[in-house]
């Protein structure tokens, strides 16, 4: 799925929700698609990752685990059918991110887009993406390393990520390895 397809699918989902007896849905999108949709990187992904639902409680935005209502699921499936793609094109496999902890202020920094009156999508910012990608790179490597390299990160950005991952309890050795792999060897030596 590329940028154009993702935009088409989200617009379709917004239209489908308008015709369903569905509540307004507000989702936090993480993963590579959040960057693709912001034009930070250009590649294809299998799906769009919904990390959390967002609601307003006492005037404040609150993140919650994404448990889609039947109407929302139906709308996702309708869009999948029309575009002949897997019905889990909008997946919620990243919901564990919420358990692991998301960076403070992630919602304030997110880019908000509305697709009709019943769908709001928040794309995590570059700042938060680097933090989460560094965490993922420690665990998985591979595509997350490639994404971090493609993002042309600055020393300031990865330094913040390094500190945040350490706070989250990730091993220093592994983080240094990630820094080296993404072209920040100098920084890795400094932090070693």
């Amino acid at each position, binding site marked *: 799925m590329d940028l154009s397809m993702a935009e088409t699918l989200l617009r379709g989902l917004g239209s*489908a929700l308008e*015709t369903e007896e569905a509540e307004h849905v507000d989702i936090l999108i993480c993963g590579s698609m959040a960057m693709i949709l912001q034009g930070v990187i250009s590649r294809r992904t299998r799906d769009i990752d919904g990390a959390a639902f967002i609601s307003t409680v006492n005037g404040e935005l609150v993140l919650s685990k994404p448990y889609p209502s039947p109407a929302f699921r139906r709308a996702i499936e309708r869009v999948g059918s029309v575009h002949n793609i897997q019905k889990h094109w909008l997946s919620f496999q990243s919901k564990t991110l919420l358990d692991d902890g998301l960076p403070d202020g992630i919602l304030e920094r997110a880019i908000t887009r509305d697709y009709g009156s019943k769908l709001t999508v928040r794309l995590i910012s570059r700042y938060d993406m680097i933090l989460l990608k560094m965490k993922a790179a420690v665990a998985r490597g591979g595509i997350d390393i490639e994404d971090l390299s493609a993002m042309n990160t600055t020393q300031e950005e990865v330094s913040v990520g390094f500190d945040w991952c350490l706070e989250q309890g990730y091993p220093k050795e592994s983080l240094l390895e990630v820094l080296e792999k993404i072209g920040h060897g100098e920084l890795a030596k400094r932090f070693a």
Partner: protein
Amino acid sequence: MENWPSDLLEPVKEIMWSQWAALGANLTVEPARKSVVDPEALFVATCGFGRNDARLFDEAMDWLLENNERIKPWRLKRIARTFGADTQRVLGAALDYVADAAGKNLFPGVREEAKQYLGEVQREDLFYSEKGRHSEEKGVDPIFLKWNLLRGAPRIREHSGTPNTGNPANLMVKLREFYGTGTRADVMTYLLTAGGGSSNEIAVRLKYNQKGVYEALEEMCAAGTVHKYSKARNGYYWVERDDMAKTLGLPVELPVFFVWGDIYFAYYLLISDCIMNVESHQDDFLSAERMRNLTVKIVPLLRNSGEPLSQLAMPDIKRQSGIEHKDKLLDYMKRVLHELRDTYTL
């Protein structure tokens, strides 16, 4: 509104005009010659599409006033049920008007069945182009008003003729004159023009009930005019076409059989969907979704409506995405119309 509904409607109406001309309506267009005209399907379809064309509608009523004995009421009823409540109500009104003009109790059963939909509808203009024109009851036709349809006085000039039975397209009408109004005429029309089939297959395509068709086939088998190859449960019936055509004094070149009721219904489904769901068709996703769902209904209808149509490449929803559902379906519908109008009408 988008242009594609009128891009499809115009050629559909051209075919209908040609078929009405073949049946004897007083028109200057070239009569259809190459495919069998089905009078009941044509009249029902005119009640559906005629809402876009007052002249077509009134010429059909004019023809029916002169030729009502040629029409099989229960077949009208059966075909109209497919088109749905809206068309059934218009049909009821048109038949009511013709019955009144003829001073006879014509088509009572069809009109009675149509009345059941009256309670569900608001009063509205019959013709889409006259929307809002008849806000008062003044000047509107009282018979159509009973059906909650507003229109001025119909232009019935009693100038329609009768079908020219020398025209191959009127084979169904000709054989009804020969065999009488029973089932045999239409069954023979099918066997001569579409080839053979089982009693069920023939009944489905002719919009008859299977039992009646089976009995007619067996009678004709016993008389030696129809042959039967008996499979275990489902006999296959056919005729020696050339011999039978000669016996009946028909031309060597026989017209092609199409299930016109299904063909007209397929176009009615698509065009009326656009008229009824203007907002949805302005949204890329909702329009694509409607087109995908319509493809599932429409393609089998057209594909099974006649041998020539089964040869045309058709849209495949499993290989299409998004807006392609719309583009491919419209392209297919245009190709079908092109085939029907340019190859099998004149």
